């Protein structure tokens, strides 16, 4: 009876030891996996900043060029109208001087037609953008610049959030045991690299 009891005690000690070991192992693996996904989380968040920066790099120059192109178009259209108007005016004067001259009359007709054509272009321009309108182009450029920078800054805040989550995870107990065993190093938050960029930009129109 004595030996039987001691065997039960022995077996149950071994058994509970194994059980604790298995539980600890599963628990450790869980923490390890959490740390891994935390690390991937902030690496992805860093990538998201890059996504927004690339978007900015690709988008903004094109928008600026579009706005520039439109401004050029608007200016050229007006210049063409003035040119046509001047020609029409000089043709009118010629006709006034010599009303019988069919060549002058023909010139006037041609100049008037050209002026009508350019004016048509000007009005088409005004109709396509109901306010004549390099202005509205510029307004939407401003809006897009703002929302682009908003997106970038939200991505940076998202990165800071992911880093904070990961750092909290790797420093909290008992996770820090696994974190130090498997070299889960601390992650760095977003920092402005050049200190002068922290200063307020000077707005100047002079």
């Amino acid at each position, binding site marked *: 009876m004595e030996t039987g009891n001691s065997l039960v005690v022995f077996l149950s000690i071994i058994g509970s030891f194994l059980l604790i070991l298995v539980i600890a192992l599963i628990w450790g693996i869980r923490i390890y996996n959490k740390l891994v996904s935390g690390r991937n989380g902030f690496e992805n968040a860093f990538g998201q900043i890059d996504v927004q920066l690339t978007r900015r790099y690709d988008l903004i120059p094109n928008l600026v060029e579009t706005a520039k192109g439109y401004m050029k178009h608007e200016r050229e259209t007006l210049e063409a109208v003035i040119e046509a108007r001047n020609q029409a005016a000089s043709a009118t004067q010629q006709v006034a001087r010599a009303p019988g001259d069919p060549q002058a009359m023909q010139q006037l007709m041609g100049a008037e037609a050209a002026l009508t054509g350019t004016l048509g272009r000007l009005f088409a321009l005004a109709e396509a953008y109901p306010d004549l309108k390099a202005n509205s182009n510029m307004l939407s450029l401003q809006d897009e610049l703002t929302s682009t920078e908003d997106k970038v800054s939200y991505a940076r805040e998202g990165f800071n*959030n992911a880093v904070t989550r990961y750092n909290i995870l790797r420093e909290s107990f008992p996770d820090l045991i696994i974190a130090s065993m498997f070299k889960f190093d601390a992650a760095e938050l977003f920092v402005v690299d050049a200190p002068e960029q922290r200063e307020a930009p000077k707005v100047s129109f002079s």
Partner: protein
Amino acid sequence: MELVSCMDLLESGFLFRGLAAQIDSSLGSLEQIPWQPLAIGFAAVALWILLAELSVRARRKQRLIDDVPTCKTAGVFIGLVEVKGTAESDDPLVSYLAESLCIHYSYTVSEQWRRLVTETYTDSKGNTRTRTRMKTGWDTVDQGTRSCPFYLEDDTGLLRVLPAGADIDSAALFSRSCGQGDALYYDKGPQSSVFGSTGTRRFVENGIPLHRRIYVMGSSRLQKDVVAPEIASDPQSPLFLISVKSEEQKSSSYSFQFWGWFLFGFVTAVALPAWLLAGAVPGPWWISGVLGGGVFFCYWTARWVVMVYNSLMALKNRVEQAWNNVDVQLKRRHDLIPQLVEVVKGYQQHEVGLQQHLALLRNEAQVAVGEVATACTPSLIALKEAHPELRANSLFIDLHEELIRTEEKVALARGYYNDIVEENNERVERIPDRFFGSLVKMRRRKYYEARSFERAAVQVDLVTEETSSAEKRA
């Protein structure tokens, strides 16, 4: 060689048989193990672990609420935020019972019954007997919960909140008991009735009414369709709470839970062993009670220490996050404002040329009307009327507004940093947190301070060089 192996076999056979005999005898002794007390013991230990956990968890939530400063909706960043404001919605729900506008409601209809029940019980002599008795009770016959996305409004703006998955504290919207004669009885309740119904129903509804002041704490993320943050359920978020209670009420209710669960656990840990093991173990009856209480207290203290450590460490990291989020706003300002200024400048330049051309055209149109009318003169007059005034104006307004918004974002980020530094510095000195200071490497932090030249009142000077020289000439 063969002999040796035979001996080996024999020996192992003997060994095996010996082992089998031992297992046999141990199986016999298994019956002697007091399984029932053991099971009770395990159940009790599991209960105490659970109670200690509940107690410590309530404290963890309380500390989180206390540590995270309130954020204005305009200054909400991506991460764990706490906001206060009123619940608003363009398309609110109509609650089922009270039929009032709300953003969340849950209702229960229960019906009373009275019936004879047969129950088995064990009498004082240990015999199993059955008896019947009249019993009354309530059955839930209908219930439902609905909530809708809403906006939290404060003095700086709106913030979208998706309440799915949140812990919601509601206010009472409706509560009434009535009999079958009442119109409400069948209007809002099912047509069928429960067995043994007494014909009484209880209608209870709780919810968050529209325009109600609420407290929200949760993780924010960027909205999918708009460039703005929203608070939504996040499995990694330590807390997602929508409450009609104030922050202080919420904090003290968690504190109450903390002490309540602890006391309950401690009392059962003392009383249960003292009562169960009174005759079973040698020594005075209170020994096992003190032992049980002591073990519970030690376990609970260990959990509490870990919780305080983790909470301080999380606070330290959040302070860092707040500091670096200021950098995010500064970088945004540095990148954005010069771009906007360039846009305004570029358009200004364009408009100067444009206006000169248009002025020329206008003059010519007037001359043409006076002298020789040409076929195109009406068109030119039309153009004169339709042509734009100075439009750089709207760009300036845009720039003006964005400058304000940008500086507000920077100021809110700095304000948040100072708020969380205040929490940090308080924890550095408070008891018991200060004893953990060196362990967590927590330290006092400096508040954000304006530089001396920034403190001076700003001189507004609207006189430009051109106007001042014009004045001189006059």
